[in-house]
């Protein structure tokens, strides 16, 4: 149990996927202009990451490894994730319209979200077992949600603040992220 908690916290704070590891930056910059939108995106990513881990881990260990096809990992994983997203979208649209209206429009966008693919690869390369993989994917995706909410909040405040002229537009977003990153580095002593 301690082990799982450690994996979770490491993924959530110490190695936060966005501010410390630069994965999924496109959506981080592109989708945070509005707090509600960024939360919808964060929930959708969390949901799909956990599902994708649950789908790709067994495929790798019970199909690709016995058949000696591990070199097809990249190809298979991206196809599995793309079709999974598609299936989830159909299912939610038909059966859970409330959830669909909350995050449905973000689902097609996250097929190519690097965070999801990165988590599924890392579960394999870190040699996690199934339970650990799930813990890791929950940690990473909640870390993504956290970073999205942080930047969206800062951007809302920034609308009314005087931004230096040469930093206006995108540069200030990266500058803010650098500062969030400095704050996150404080977590690095959290876990030994």
């Amino acid at each position, binding site marked *: 149990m301690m082990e799982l908690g450690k994996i979770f916290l490491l993924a959530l704070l110490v190695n936060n996927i966005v*501010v410390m590891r*630069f994965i999924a930056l496109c959506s981080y910059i592109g989708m945070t202009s509005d707090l509600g939108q960024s939360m919808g995106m964060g929930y959708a990513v969390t949901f799909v990451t956990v599902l994708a881990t649950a789908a790709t881990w067994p495929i790798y260990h019970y199909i690709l490894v016995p058949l000696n096809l591990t070199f097809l990992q*990249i*190809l298979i994983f991206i196809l599995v994730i793309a079709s999974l997203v598609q299936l989830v979208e159909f299912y939610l649209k038909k059966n859970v319209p409330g959830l669909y209206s909350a995050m449905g429009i973000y689902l097609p966008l996250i097929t190519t979200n690097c965070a999801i693919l990165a988590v599924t690869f*890392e579960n394999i390369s870190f040699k996690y077992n199934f339970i650990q993989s799930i813990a890791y994917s929950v940690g990473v995706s909640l870390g993504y949600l956290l970073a999205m909410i942080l930047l969206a909040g800062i951007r809302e405040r920034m609308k009314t603040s005087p931004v230096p002229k040469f930093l206006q537009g995108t*540069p200030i977003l*990266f500058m803010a992220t650098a500062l969030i*990153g400095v704050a996150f580095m404080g977590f690095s002593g959290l876990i030994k």
Partner: protein
Amino acid sequence: MKKLYSIFKQGIIFDNPLLMLMIGLCSAIAVTTNVSNGIGMGLAMTFVLLFSEVIISLFRKLIPTTIRIPIFIIVIAAFTTMVDLVMKAYFPDLSKSMGVFIPLIVVNCIIMGRVEAFASKQKLASVIADGLGMGLGYTWVLIAIAAVRELLGSGTLAGIQVMPASYQPILFFILPPGGFFVFSLFISLNIWLKKKMEASAKNKELVTKKEAA
């Protein structure tokens, strides 16, 4: 020939994928802690981009539009796998230090974007020019960012000591926040340059108009 050159130039400066279009950012900041990583990533990316574009341009009349996206993904994933395996076999250290970012080339927005917007509609020659231009545009920005970060953060360039021995490295620059910081300055510099170029182009136009009048 002139048209090809202008397409090539477009990718390197005016439509630079990183500084102008703001796509494919993840790898750009993550691997730029030193110059050799930057070069490796840039070349890997250029290879995948160029060959995916060429293949898709060659088969563009055969690919049905309704299922084009899965086909693009398969082509890109195949080339990424090649790069991944070659890197693992011949440059194990480089491959280890870049970690998950090599397989992540497959979801890099630059490739998908260029394939969808350009390669699936254009002839082979202009596609090659575009692939090279975009790839090299990506590579030079990577190398430039990496050079700044490595020089300030560890006092070396591509592993060779450049700064005098008394130089105290500013660790901040090779840590993650430093990456965001340097990248932010690069974008603002680029925006400034673009504004300046546009202003001078406008001035020229005004002058020619006046002369004509």
